[in-house]
């Protein structure tokens, strides 16, 4: 079993295709909840959610033994990760099939990236 990061990007704080009206928001949330239920039930869901924007971000680094904090994101770019899922999948085809479901639910492109290793899963 492998793990994959399915992430979606906002461009200059905007997610094209994101719900605008309350009705759209309600339908969007229903699709997302249904998707996450399906992920959960099939043992696919590890973690995920929507993120606050880059303005809410802090970078932490160490310099000469001291902790330095900077306001803002690590990468100064137009695009920022807007949300992600981490999923279990047997292989890329399985991960891509889930990515497609996420695309259908959120109406926005998804980047699929395999995990190399975690503290628990060694490469």
């Amino acid at each position, binding site marked *: 079993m492998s793990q994959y990061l399915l992430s979606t990007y906002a461009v200059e704080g905007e997610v094209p295709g994101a719900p605008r009206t309350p009705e759209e928001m309600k339908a969007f949330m229903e699709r997302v909840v249904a998707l996450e239920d399906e992920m959960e039930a099939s043992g696919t869901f590890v973690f995920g959610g929507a993120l606050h924007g880059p303005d809410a971000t802090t970078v932490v680094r160490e310099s000469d033994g001291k902790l330095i904090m900077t306001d803002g994101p690590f990468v100064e770019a137009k695009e920022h990760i807007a949300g992600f899922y981490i999923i279990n999948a047997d292989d890329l*085809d399985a991960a891509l099939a889930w990515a497609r479901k996420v695309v259908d639910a959120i109406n926005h492109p998804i980047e699929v990236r395999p995990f190399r290793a975690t503290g628990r899963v060694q490469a």
Partner: protein
Amino acid sequence: MSAPVAARGEATGVERVFREAYGQAVATLARIFGDITLAEDAVQEAFVVASDRWRSDGIPPNPAGWIVTTARNRAIDDLRRSARGRELHEQLGALATRSHRPDTEEWEEDGPVRDDQLRLIFTCCHPALRTEHRVALTLRLLGGLSVDEVARSFLVSESAMAKRLVRAKYKIKAAKIPFRVPEEADLPDRLRSVLSVLYLIYNTGLDAPERASLRSEAIRLARALVELMPDEPEAAGLLALMLLSESRVRARTADGAVVLLRDQDRTRWDRTMIEEGQAIVRACIRRGRPGPYQLQAAIQAVHCDADSFEATDWPQIVALYDHLFSVMPTPVVALNRAIAIAEIEGPGAALASLDSIAPDLDNYHLMHAARGTMLRRLGERDAAQAAFERAAHLAATGADRRFLAQQIKELAEDGALMQRPLGGSTGSTNETRTR
């Protein structure tokens, strides 16, 4: 790492067998070990052993099986020796205890080799890989071409091609692209990717004489695919399309310039290939599941059926283009249809059709070449010259440029011979490849 396979043209029996066996052996080893690089290394080692043994003892009855068994035994030995290997070795468990002599027929327990090849084709042509990586992997792993041969085919250095292959194989392994024939639901899309890679390889082979071997490689792989997937009419359609195109290769250039279908010496067409291609097309028609490759092959089959350009069944050609456009509505299909229209309704009607699609194909040299031809037939010499010049400016190959230079020269001669009837000797560019 380059295969111990001699360059094309000097292939002996053993080397030919290597090339044939390479794809099968890598495919089976990749399935057993789940790792392409390991599979390639093991097959490479087995070839070294084989090249000594086979030259003295002769080629065994099942060379691919011999290579698979030898390669697997070698790989298992290598794995036992390395630390990483010991882990993998434990995982492989039972498999590792079954190392047997390559000369026996026991290799068959490894399962059907043919399915392994099919799995590897789908892996190499996975849509998650970029197109140039799909092409490189397919030629290297399934075609058995050396890295240097693949590099030369795409005009890049051997080191650049080696890097490309390493990156592609890294992605297959890291992202875990499976070795599997796709499920029914995904099969049409995935097969389309495989077919387009093979057709791209074929067409790359058409672009320059020094890449001619790519064409035979593409035909060989398409043939293998048809054997592996006999129920997929589009695979057969692609094979027929390649064969019918290949049958005319000898006639389509002269003195380094393109010769139009109209002017080709039809006695130089390869009748054997035409017959095979046409038989496949007929079988496809009987199945009644037409698709873009089958329809393109059917169009070529009609061309190959005619004893002369004039004797071509143009209404049939246009009807087939209409059908093709309904399943593949691309501007290039519309272009080819417009060119065929000229032979029924005349150059004026064809020019009107061409003008309606011109904005979409403004950077495509064959669009301007076709406009030039129609304008010339209509006697509009200045406009024709401008069109041919634009085409020559856009043309990528020397053969195309030389052909267009000829057209411009002939236009000047048209001017000198004011008495000459219009719609003279130039033809349509039905020879365009439908991409």
